[in-house]
């Protein structure tokens, strides 16, 4: 019955001794400052307490079945080396707080310094913060930062960015201060319409947001976009939801980008039904003081030895209060550590090879899909590890048939893009063996007959 006592060490004798030391008679006396009328008179209506074995039995009954999956769209099923969860399970890491006392937090601080370096190298930018909640909120913070820097109103957002990210931006901005203008995507190519973008560029534009690879999996051609944006005095923000792509793709920093906001879940963090994930945020040095989030910097101790501290805290809420650059406090520190361990294992060669494998598997799936009658690839532009295809049939019904064969066959796009109502976003990673892809194609073919 008193199974909960495993987390509370007080014996009855302890309690009596402590009450005596304090100088009160009962536990009740400790709550004397709470007006009597507000005290609860009956126990909370909650289940439990349960022992460990009973708890396990209960939660097992709530687990979901694991099927062969071809869905991505902002969260990806990648292999996580055993090392990642083992090291992240070191309780010196995970039971610590934010590293406010640097002398006993050098582990977290050095790891985040390494994380910041990796994110800069991955995205080609000069500085990175210590993480944000997820890709979407990181992007929304980038929008607020651009507004702080430019003081301008308009945000041009490609229609091909993740639709949920778009919605999060909409929630974060104050409609009296800022407005979102959508730039359409090219219906044949599936990438952002550069001409339309050029037409919208004017002196009111605070920032332009393009995602690459975009929500359709299409790799955007960013080479010539930045110049026009900068000429108009706006900032260029690139976001992404699939970080693995940058194992082969040119880093945004090499294309004159001002802020990069991305999702880092692919870097060793489990899917966990949508969170916790990892918001990446990198920018250039000149914007450091406008950045949101925590930063770790290198310094020396009294004896001249290298060490790390949280720095530039004068941007942050605990120092600046209402004048802070963001209200973020707790971020996703352990997820940043996981990404650092992950990238340390994969390293220079591994991340590239993994990216190539994702690309190759998706190309293979595109090839087999394009041979199926009633199935057509929608966009002509190059893609990374996901692609859109149109099927002759009701996507929900087709997917239901695949599900009966143990396959989650793709993500129907009608919910996000009404015009793509017969379309599926199909994602293929290194986790999909060729055999699986072939079976998916076979079942799809059957379902479309």
């Amino acid at each position, binding site marked *: 019955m008193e199974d909960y006592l495993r*987390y*509370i060490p*007080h014996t009855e004798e302890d309690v009596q001794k*402590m009450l005596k030391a304090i100088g009160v008679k009962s536990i009740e006396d400790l709550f004397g400052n709470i007006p009597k009328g507000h005290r*609860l008179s009956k126990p909370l209506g*909650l*289940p439990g*307490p349960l022992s*460990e074995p009973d708890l*396990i039995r209960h*939660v097992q009954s*709530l*687990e*979901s079945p694991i099927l062969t999956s071809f*869905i991505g769209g*902002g*969260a990806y099923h990648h*292999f996580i080396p055993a090392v990642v969860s083992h090291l992240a399970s070191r*309780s010196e*890491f995970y039971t*610590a*707080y934010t590293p*406010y*006392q640097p002398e*006993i937090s*050098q*582990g977290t601080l*050095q790891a985040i310094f390494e994380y910041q370096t990796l994110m800069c*190298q*991955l995205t080609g930018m000069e500085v990175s913060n210590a993480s944000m*909640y997820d890709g979407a*909120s990181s992007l929304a913070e980038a929008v607020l930062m651009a507004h702080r820097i430019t003081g301008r109103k308009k945000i041009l957002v490609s229609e091909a960015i993740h639709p949920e990210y778009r919605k*999060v931006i909409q929630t974060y901005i104050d409609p009296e201060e800022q407005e979102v203008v959508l730039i359409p995507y090219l219906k044949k190519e599936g990438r952002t319409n550069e001409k339309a973008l050029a037409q919208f560029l004017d002196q009111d534009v605070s920032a332009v947001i393009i995602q690459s690879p975009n929500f359709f999996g299409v790799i955007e051609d960013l080479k010539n976009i930045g110049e026009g944006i900068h000429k108009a005095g706006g900032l260029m923000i690139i976001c992404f939801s699939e970080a693995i792509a940058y194992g*082969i793709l*040119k880093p945004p920093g090499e294309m004159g980008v001002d802020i990069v906001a991305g999702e880092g879940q692919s870097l060793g963090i*489990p899917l*966990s*039904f*949508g969170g916790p994930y990892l918001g990446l945020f990198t920018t250039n040095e000149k914007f450091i003081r406008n950045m949101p989030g925590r930063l*770790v910097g290198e310094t020396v101790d009294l004896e001249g*030895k290298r*060490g790390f501290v949280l*720095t530039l*805290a004068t941007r942050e*809420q*605990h120092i600046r209060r*209402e*004048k*802070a650059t963001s209200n973020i406090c*707790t*971020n*996703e520190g*352990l997820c940043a550590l996981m990404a650092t*361990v992950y990238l*340390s294992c994969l*390293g220079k060669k591994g991340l590239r*090879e993994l990216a190539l494998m994702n690309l*190759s598997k998706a190309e293979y799936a595109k090839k087999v899909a394009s041979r199926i009658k009633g199935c057509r690839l929608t966009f002509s532009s*190059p893609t990374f590890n996901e692609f859109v295809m149109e099927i002759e049939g009701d996507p929900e019904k087709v997917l239901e048939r695949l599900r009966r064969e143990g396959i*989650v066959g793709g993500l129907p796009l009608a919910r996000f893009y009404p015009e793509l109502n017969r379309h599926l976003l199909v994602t293929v990673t290194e986790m999909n063996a060729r055999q699986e892809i072939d079976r998916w194609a076979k079942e799809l073919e059957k379902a479309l007959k």
Partner: protein
Amino acid sequence: MVICHSFGIWILTFELLEGTPNAVCPREITMGKTRDTGLLQDEPLIFEQGGEGRRGYSLPQWDIEEVEVNRLLPSHFLRKELEGFPQLSEMDVVRHFTRLSQWNYGVDNGFYPLGSCTMKYNPKINEEVARMKGFAHIHPYQPESLVQGILKLMVELGGFLSEITGMDQTTLQPAAGAHGELTGMMMIRAALQARGEKRKRVLVPDTAHGTNCSTSTVASYQVVEIKSNERGIIPPRKVEELMDEEVAGIMVTNPNTLGFFEEHLAEIAEIVHRKGGFVYCDGANLNALMGIVKLGDLGVDMVHLNLHKTFSTPHGGGGPGSGPLAVKSELAPFLPVPVIEKEGGTYRFNFDRPKSIGRIKAFYGNFGVALKAYAYIFSMGAEGLKRASEMAVLNANYLMKGLKGSFDLPYDRPCMHECVFTDRHQEKHHVSTLDIAKRLIDYGFHPPTIYFPLVVKGALMMEPTETESKEGLDRFIETMTAIAKEAEENSDLLRQAPTKVKVRRLDEVRAARKPKLRWIPNK
């Protein structure tokens, strides 16, 4: 001569022995670089290790043909290489991060009385639950029919949190406490807009967490500070003076950061409501109140909870947290989408909520963290949660009593879950709060929260939580008493502290003046 770089303690110089070309033996230990640091080994940055071609990964087999990337993608899409990325074996990586971990201090290492952070024990079973495949490997876009158990769990957890706080509905979406605050303030803005009102200001007491102020700003409100009274709580009269039709509401923390129950909250809520405002409660300190009081009964309209404080999920060295927001039914239409609903026997996401503030995160919150809180609530039950709050308050009062003789207690009256001391008695020996905190490290404790709340000069804010035993508290009290004595007799010990650590006090001014925020590869 060969320099053999073995990561960790030794940097040794080797010399090839004449006539035995393959044998090496240590000739001398380079003094100054080698230190007898025991387990606190030196460890270079991950980028300063490894070697060309070393690998720490394995990929699934290539069962399809590798595409010719240069043919598939234009060259200006492609990067040359992952410059600066490490090349290490798996054990290199394991040793590196294991060493780093040994420089850290967590709840599992010892007492962690960080005020307002509720550093209670993080049950291990919860970690295992979050790693179960049927949760950890589930995609957020998995069809609803396949995730009924997960949706049920989320609805149940929301219900438990509503029950604990006395609210009507809870969203699990906010990723952290500050994210919950932001969600709440946006909902207040939306609720006022729905009434055709636009208000300008938010009342925040001077004892508030910094996030309350910055959240108000991000939500486009101006902050008006309320002075707390000599008892450390908000006087209703002040609220009455400041409250008008331009004020959207008040953000209060209860118990507040001085560790006191806001005794007049119900009256304050009435004043705020009378003028059409809302009462937001920062639930960071809920650990004092579970099963004791329901905030909803005090007129609170919404409260965020920090699952990583009250509900035992770990802080992860700075996240991930989870900051569910519980609200009264009047505010429920404004909750972020999606809301999970049960129709017949089936759970589903509802996105069709015209009054909603919209989305605040790409998916549905930090589910992996919520799971741990769910497991915790089941492990504790109603009785256990109440016992936790009682013991948390008992521990804080015991600590307060034990330290009262040695340290200045600015508000000398019974506290709830935490208590606040100052460095006033030590000042005359030129010893500050910072020195006291650093000296605690030498004794193997994590320091309390320092210099917060701002209303107390040189504050030392201590929250022991219920999971600390009497012996643990006694050791801490003994140590603090010894430190107070040291301050009188040998104050240099404090000013020089800490000495028994990986690094001594760090030059924070230098870090901020010339920010070096990353390692830069050698070109």
